[in-house]
């Protein structure tokens, strides 16, 4: 595959100002840019909408048609009332234009007070009142995740699985890649074929026996039951082997002259020199493990073992109407991946193009 990172990258500013030699844009250029802008809208739009929605309070979420930004009704503090009162502006009558706080409301009628004169209760009909609204971020959607649900537990489970599985996978796969790239031994080709063979056995087609093996090993309903079965991957072995082949054998021989053990050569020379390939594999592994769904769904059945993905999926069934929590949780689940994407997108692109993303 061609090296993707070498493709030219210009910033937004350059995009808007430079003309790069050509005077006028051909109509096909306009069509292209039109398509790409539609792409921005279609690809980013839904995510932006999700994030904005997650900051809306329940009233705003129930509103139809929805508004773009999160609005909430403002409240005012009035002397003599412990709680802040909902703010309204009077639209007609003697008090037209006045800002009032609502104290009671029933059957089309409302009792309000003017902040300047808190003792006098005024009765109005509700159609004389218009709520005062401002942009407000309902952060309680997020804070209640920690109060009402075991959110930290799910977050910890996901993090633990992702970190442990990535470390284990890097170690095991780089050891195998080292053996397959730096040693001449009988049976090497057979092992390579074996590794290719595992490409044909995705987890999805061996669910039942895998379940038996994991149960027999005592890993049912344990995070290790998710971590260990996926630790050896043909993609990882091939990706690292391809890279390690390019490390000159002379370096290894020089180290052997200095009486370095083979393990030391692996750990102190080959692994650091393979850092770019290991970084790519690490990013892929983090992505796979964080987003993993089907296998955890089978192995982890107790709520306290749920990963974020499982928790999200089970809550969407239980809390059909609790969109505020669900939206906030969705945002927090995609946040780590979005962060990885922003900082490392160049590596991700090369990594995926070079492995075929299995």
């Amino acid at each position: 595959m061609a090296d993707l990172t070498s493709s030219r990258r210009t910033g937004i500013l350059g995009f808007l100002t430079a003309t790069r030699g050509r005077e006028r844009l051909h109509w096909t250029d306009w069509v292209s840019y039109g398509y790409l802008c539609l792409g921005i809208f279609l690809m980013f739009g839904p995510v932006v909408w999700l994030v904005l929605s997650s900051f809306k309070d329940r009233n705003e979420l129930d509103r139809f048609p929805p508004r773009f930004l999160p609005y909430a009704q403002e409240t005012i503090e009035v002397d003599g009332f412990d709680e802040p009162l909902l703010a309204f502006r009077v639209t007609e009558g003697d008090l037209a234009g006045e800002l009032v706080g609502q104290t009671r409301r029933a059957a089309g009628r409302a009792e309000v007070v003017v902040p300047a004169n808190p003792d006098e209760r005024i009765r109005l009909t509700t159609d004389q009142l218009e709520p005062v609204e401002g942009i407000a971020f309902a952060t309680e959607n997020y804070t209640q995740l920690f109060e009402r649900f075991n959110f930290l537990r799910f977050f910890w489970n996901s993090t633990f699985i992702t970190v442990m599985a990535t470390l284990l996978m890097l170690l095991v796969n780089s050891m195998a890649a080292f053996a397959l790239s730096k040693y001449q031994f009988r049976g090497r080709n057979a092992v390579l074929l074996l590794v290719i063979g595992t490409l044909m056995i995705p987890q999805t087609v061996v669910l039942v026996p895998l379940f038996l093996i994991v149960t027999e090993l005592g890993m049912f309903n344990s995070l290790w039951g998710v971590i260990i079965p996926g630790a050896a991957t043909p993609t990882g072995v091939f990706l690292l082997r391809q890279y390690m082949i390019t490390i000159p054998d002379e370096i290894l021989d020089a180290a052997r002259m200095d009486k370095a053990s083979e393990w030391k050569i692996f750990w102190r020379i080959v692994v650091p020199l393979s850092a770019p390939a290991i970084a790519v594999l690490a990013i892929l592994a983090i992505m796979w493990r964080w987003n993993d769904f089907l296998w955890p769904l089978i192995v982890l059945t107790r709520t306290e073992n749920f990963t974020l993905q499982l928790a999200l999926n089970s809550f969407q069934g239980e809390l059909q109407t609790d969109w505020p929590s669900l939206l906030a949780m969705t945002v927090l689940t995609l946040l780590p991946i979005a962060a990885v994407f922003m900082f490392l997108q160049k590596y991700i692109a090369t990594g995926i193009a070079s492995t075929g993303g299995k």
Partner: protein
Amino acid sequence: MLSVISSVMRIVEIPMIALQRLLGINRLAWVFLLPNLILFGLFAFLPVILNVVYSMTGSDNVLLSDRPYIGASNFGTLLDCSDFLDPNSCREDKFWRAVWNTIWFVTLQVGIMVGFSLLTAVILNRDIRARGFFRSVFFFPVLLSPVVVALIWKWILQREGVLNAFLDWTGIGGFNWLVDAHWAFAWSVFISVWAHMGFYTLILLAGLQAIPRDVYEAAIMDRAGAWRTFRRITLPLLSPTMLVVLVLALIKGVQTFDEIYAFTGGGPGTATTFIIQYIYEKGFAGAPRLFGLAAAASLLVAGVLVVLTLAQLWANRRSVDG
């Protein structure tokens, strides 16, 4: 963290040096391979063999010793159909519904997705400013987890969601999308294309960039039009990459489960139940747990995947040589 790792490595070195003395350098390779081979053996090859055993035994017990041998009767159950085109005529009608859903889904999803990926890659390969930015725009959804993808679109498509609001505003009027079988299926195809097309765009773009510039310069000299250049030069030179993309997309399409399960739960009815969901439900979600039937269905899927994977390896080799 790093200091813990490096001290672990120092401890591991002691037995490794002993093994090196014992085995010699070249046979030490097997020691390096061992953890990987154990994992492959336990979690890939052994399961394949056990899968065959499961498919030929009955009862809802997971332990093999408690499962009576029943021969090919699980396959018999699955394949008992008077008309394979009509799931209603089959004993295990849900299996055939899932099979036909999967076939339809894969055909539509792969066709639409590869088409749009190609279009996007061709546009990104033009003299476009901010190409890196646009490339990552299309790639971004690939990183999202399936459950997140499902929830994002569920939120947009719900009865009082933003799409219905827009349709109301234009006068077309809203619709309860995921309650209607055909619409639920169409949206399943859509979100699947949305979530994965960036990945294939990336591969196709790499393929396009590998086509040498001078071929195009020659075409300009010969006054070949844009469309002719595309059909006679770009497409043939891109065809090895296209083949890789097609096979990869097919392999992944057949295994579609996560995002659709979180999106529609397979419904309404069985409208979006695909083959992996059928296996999951037979083996793990329903009672009694029909492990044998699930294993038999898995074997049939595995057969399809083996053929596709061989095709992928062959296509990969062709794209490297060509």
